[in-house]
């Protein structure tokens, strides 16, 4: 198929339909409104379920229900709306249900603002809810990547029986770009959902969807089972991209739209003769620490660039294991860094200064 020009929010919505999403439950919030708006019309056209719920709390619990019944289900929101969903998300993870959650991040904390931000990194990668669980979290930088990852994300969620978070920001949500919806994405080997409480017990025992285990020893086993899943993600399912890494002197660590802006910065730096690579995490959980092991020996400095006050720094520090000096440049509150700013930040370092 030819590429179509679409708004990010609508493209992500359509990607979900392509992935066989059977239900969308969500609540309006800027800057992701076009996503549910698109689905309010198109899910019905495909005979699928769409409900604008009374709140984010209701939405995520509707997701819990549909996921438990074995349906492919999605919700989307933006930062404070995701905060409201934390209890529901920990239930979904606790009950080992597959679901896709799109977070089109905006400035925080609190009501904050509505402009693009990456201020939910902690909330996303550390699980904002209670208990030992993680979300498989994907951070695309373009609409094509977003569409491809969303198409795959339903498989990933089903495979791990774990919620997948798509972490984008207002830039991705609001921009228009040509997208090819027919690109092949990896297919995962999926088992039938024999565990689903779908009210259709033909020849099987009753199924129970649950996260309650009053016996601590049983709950411990459950937690260890979950941990094994997260360890498997960490071990075998990190995703990242290393860009312009040959002989790189300095490496920008950035994800999502910031990685994209960094690409421009790198072009500009190359013109100035600065050898700058980009380490772009695609999964922010599991964090791609394997990428750090692959950095060439030429690298002398790391520069983390984020649209936050430095939330990814923790993960970079952990992955870096004290090896390279880590610098930071961030804009926050909805301010999008321009390529020039990143260039300046790099020059400051390769010129010798540490503004970290």
């Amino acid at each position: 198929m030819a590429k179509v020009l679409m708004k990010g929010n609508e493209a992500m919505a359509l990607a979900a339909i392509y992935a066989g999403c059977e239900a969308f439950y969500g609540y309006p919030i800027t800057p992701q409104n076009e996503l549910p708006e698109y689905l309010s019309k198109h899910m019905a056209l495909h005979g699928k379920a769409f409900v604008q719920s009374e709140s984010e709390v209701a939405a995520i619990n509707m997701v819990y229900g549909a996921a438990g019944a074995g349906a492919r289900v999605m919700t989307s929101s933006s930062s404070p709306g995701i905060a409201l969903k934390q209890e529901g998300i920990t239930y979904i993870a606790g009950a080992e249900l597959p679901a896709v959650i799109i977070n089109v991040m905006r400035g925080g904390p609190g009501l904050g603002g509505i402009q693009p931000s990456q201020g939910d990194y902690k909330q996303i990668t550390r699980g904002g809810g209670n208990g030992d669980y993680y979300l498989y979290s994907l951070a695309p930088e373009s609409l094509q990547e977003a569409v491809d990852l969303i198409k795959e994300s339903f498989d990933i969620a089903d495979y791990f029986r774990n919620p997948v978070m798509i972490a984008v920001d207002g830039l991705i949500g609001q921009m228009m770009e040509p997208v090819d919806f027919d690109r092949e994405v990896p297919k995962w080997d999926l088992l039938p959902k024999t565990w689903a409480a779908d009210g259709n017990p033909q020849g099987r025992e009753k199924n129970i969807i649950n996260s309650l285990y009053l016996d601590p020893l049983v709950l411990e086993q459950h937690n260890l089972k979950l941990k094994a899943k997260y360890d498997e993600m960490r071990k075998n399912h990190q995703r990242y991209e290393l860009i312009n890494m040959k002989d790189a002197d300095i490496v920008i660590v950035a994800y999502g739209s910031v990685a994209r802006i960094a690409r421009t910065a790198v072009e500009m730096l190359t013109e100035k003769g600065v050898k700058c690579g980009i380490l772009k995490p695609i999964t922010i959980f599991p964090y791609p620490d394997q990428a750090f092991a692959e950095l060439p020996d030429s690298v002398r400095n790391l520069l983390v660039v984020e649209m936050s006050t430095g939330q990814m720094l923790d993960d970079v520090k952990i992955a870096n294991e004290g090896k390279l000096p880590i610098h930071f440049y961030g804009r926050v509150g909805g301010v999008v860094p321009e390529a020039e700013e990143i260039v300046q930040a790099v020059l400051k370092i390769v010129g010798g200064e540490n503004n970290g």
Partner: protein
Amino acid sequence: MDNVKTIYKKSEGLSDFNLSYCPGCTHGIIHKLVAETLVELDVLDRSIGISSVGCSALNYDFFSCDMVQAAHGRAPAVATGIKRVKPNTIIFTYQGDGDLASIGIAEAIHAAHRSENITIVFVNNAIYGMTGGQMAPTTLIGQKTTTSQGGRDAHIHGLPLRISEMMATIPGATYIERVSVHNPQHVQKAKKALKKAFTIQKENKGFTLIEFISTCPVNWGLTPKDAIDWAVENMIPYYPLGVYKDKTVGEES
């Protein structure tokens, strides 16, 4: 010799688990009614029950159909999520007064508002049983609980909420009735109400809620029988039994 006919036995809508309720708690009677109704309407094998958070949280083990344990108050949202993708199932939520009337009132109202085709079994025992007897929105004036130790006081705590009356004003709701299980006659009446509700759901006619006046002998500090008597004497006057909404009436006549 005489022939023998079994006229009452444990419903096959219930599993073999022992109910976790305290001795004499009427939660158990309500469970039987739900189970019997699902069996008698021949829908058990396409039913999904939603356990909520409260003493009945563990009832995912007690009913013999598929079950989903929901977050506190969110059972109607969970039910909606399922029903919209599995419209041929019969969905019920089983919720206490803390769960439905307090933390979950928004989800209950909006399930009714959207005319979700589900049945809510609402168990009003005027207290938070599971967590040890705190005040509920349905706790009566003067009633002592662990968070209204001097008795509920209208000036501090307001007047008890009447859920059936309130939900009956929702245009989207189809059937709402309040029943009690304080004697065999009322148990039968209550079952009739449940049957009506599930039949409406079976016929895709929309949202139904049956409110049960129930007891909490342990947290009320009464014997099971005294608890039932207390409910009859104190709760029913404030929470009158009866049909609060029936959209099928015009239809039938």
